[in-house]
């Protein structure tokens, strides 16, 4: 979590992103999907926050809202202390150079009509960095950084496997020497044997270049390897936030506990009590009153359906472990 220094590289304060739902004859806004509903966190230089949650919990929307690929509904996004919500496109350019994104689907995120070199140098072209020669040289450096040879630069994305394409996507994200990268499920489309290769690459980049990551994943096992801290999201809100060590050894929120117990363990002799949650995630159009999780929580109490639990720190001052659950009061 944030150190003594108050200006984190990135600080998000009470960020909200609602999507209007239109209906009826006049296509009026009838309701709203509360995709991200009041999220706050900090990411320090070179640190990685893992964001975990199930589909529809708002984790991807949050990642995109931070880069202003979605316009936030309200809240603040502070980059080195400066709020970038409300900045004009022209003013945003400087910040965009420092913040990049790696997408989930390496098949959809690379243009099929461009060569590898064109894809990787595009950010340099857009931001007008270097001469043509310098850009060419940079492309080769970047390919080497992600473990690929210069000989592939004139080939097209369809000639590559998923893992190789993801490396090309990472090279593109690195082109502008960003300080912060949103990695949105970067390995979930890949096969197991390739997944670990890409995770190792990301871990190495983090170490060598000191890049901070917001690493979004639905997989607690994947996210453990790359994160310093983890935020668990449910229905648009962070319900638990702790360091990797604390979260995995002592998950406090019943949702985090259920999420962990639901992961199939590759060991047929493993005996453990699985918490099987009843029912489905409620609709973010019509979230339940009180604690968002009370409709599925195995430990729900009376007050859970009426009162929203506050986020409390159950850790120490220097090593906070924050959780929003009445059981922690």
């Amino acid at each position: 979590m944030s150190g003594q220094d108050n200006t984190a590289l990135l600080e998000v304060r009470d960020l909200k992103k609602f999507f209007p739902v239109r209906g009826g004859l006049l296509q009026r806004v009838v309701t709203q999907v509360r995709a991200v509903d009041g999220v706050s966190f900090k990411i320090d230089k070179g640190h990685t926050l893992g964001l975990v949650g199930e589909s529809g919990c708002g984790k991807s929307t949050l990642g995109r809202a931070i880069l202003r690929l979605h316009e936030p509904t309200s809240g603040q996004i502070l980059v080195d202390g400066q709020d970038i919500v409300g900045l004009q496109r022209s003013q945003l350019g400087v910040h965009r150079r420092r913040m990049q994104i790696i997408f989930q689907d390496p098949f959809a995120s690379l243009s099929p009509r461009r060569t590898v070199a064109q894809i990787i140098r595009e950010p340099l072209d857009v931001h007008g960095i270097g001469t043509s020669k310098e850009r060419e040289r940079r492309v080769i450096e970047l390919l080497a950084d992600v473990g690929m040879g210069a000989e592939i630069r004139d080939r097209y994305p369809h000639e590559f496997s998923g893992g190789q394409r993801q490396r090309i996507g990472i090279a593109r994200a690195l082109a502008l020497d960003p300080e912060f990268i949103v990695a949105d499920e970067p390995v979930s489309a890949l096969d197991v044997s390739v997944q670990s290769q890409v995770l190792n690459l990301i871990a190495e980049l983090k170490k060598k270049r000191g890049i901070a990551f917001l690493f979004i994943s639905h997989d607690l096992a994947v996210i453990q390897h790359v994160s310093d801290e983890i935020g668990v999201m449910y229905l648009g809100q962070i319900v638990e936030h702790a360091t990797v060590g604390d979260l995995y050894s002592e998950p406090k929120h019943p949702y985090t506990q259920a999420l962990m117990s639901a992961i199939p363990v590759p060991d047929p002799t493993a005996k453990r009590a699985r918490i099987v949650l009843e029912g489905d995630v409620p609709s973010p159009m019509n979230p339940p009153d009180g604690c968002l999780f009370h409709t599925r929580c195995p430990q729900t109490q009376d007050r859970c359906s009426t009162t929203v639990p506050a986020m409390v720190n159950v850790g120490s001052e220097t090593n906070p472990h924050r959780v929003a659950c009445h059981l922690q009061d």
Partner: protein
Amino acid sequence: MADNKETPLLSVQNLIIEFATENGVVRATDNISFDIFPNETVGIVGESGCGKTVTGLSILGLIPSPPGRIVGGSIKFMGRELVGLAENEMRKIRGCRISMIFQEPMTALNPVFTVGNQMTDVLMRHHGLTRRQARDSAIEMLAKVGIPAPAKRIDEYPHQLSGGMRQRVMIAMALSCDPKLLIADEPTTALDVTTQAQVLEQISKLQAEFHMAVVLITHDLGVVAETCRRAIVMYCGRIVENTSIEHLFTNPRHPYAKGLLDSIPQIRSRRLEELPIIPGRVPDLLHLPPGCRFAARCPRADELCNEQIPTLSPAGTHADRVACHHPYAAEPAGPAS
């Protein structure tokens, strides 16, 4: 558990399936042989393109042709040859004696009909029930797979249901004719972990209740460990290992199986500096090496591996089988089998 003397429910022998592509003929499965015994749950595991889905589809006679073609081999179900069976005969078996559930329940269900419509069709066709009887029977099935308020849900359309609910509806449909064999192709891959846990539990429960064999096709070894008795590991269209779950996870013999096990992301008590990987990547099916297909990525490969394709041995039915020139040693001490 089936013992050695029992006759297999399903016996696949030397199955070869080819697909014609723009760039040439691709062999999706190359001489695969395996048996499935009554009441057992077997996992077919492998990464994308290894031929696991094609294998599942071929059992139901669902290989799209063209471009696909069964070039050789046999698929026997309860003693009856399915390869080359006339389509009208196949229809009596498909969806009735052998059922299948798919990865994406949204595309497998018809969006313009209600759940009830789709379910009663199957029952009326195979069991000759009246519409009313079929409806009652469908409601009963929906209740069995754990759908709350089934009498109400039956009149809803697929888009009104969540992913987990849709998969349950698929399962209810697949089981409505009391099949002897259920083929489940990545049934939980599109679902969230908490929903996956619900659905897997449901499948295991129903497997016992309906006395059927289940072939679970998946890329997830964690899912296999929790639900299957036996696993068939595929790589590039060939079976590399066919073994009991205990042996696969404690003593994998094929280097690919071992590599796959090591590289599964799992929650560890201490974070590793670097995750174990399998170097390189899966070869292109159009340009397969002459020898073992895993040789280029294998830590144990030598000259022999580059020249000669290893065959699955021994050729017993229920014994552990591995296709490797230099397998890891089998540990003699194991659970009494």
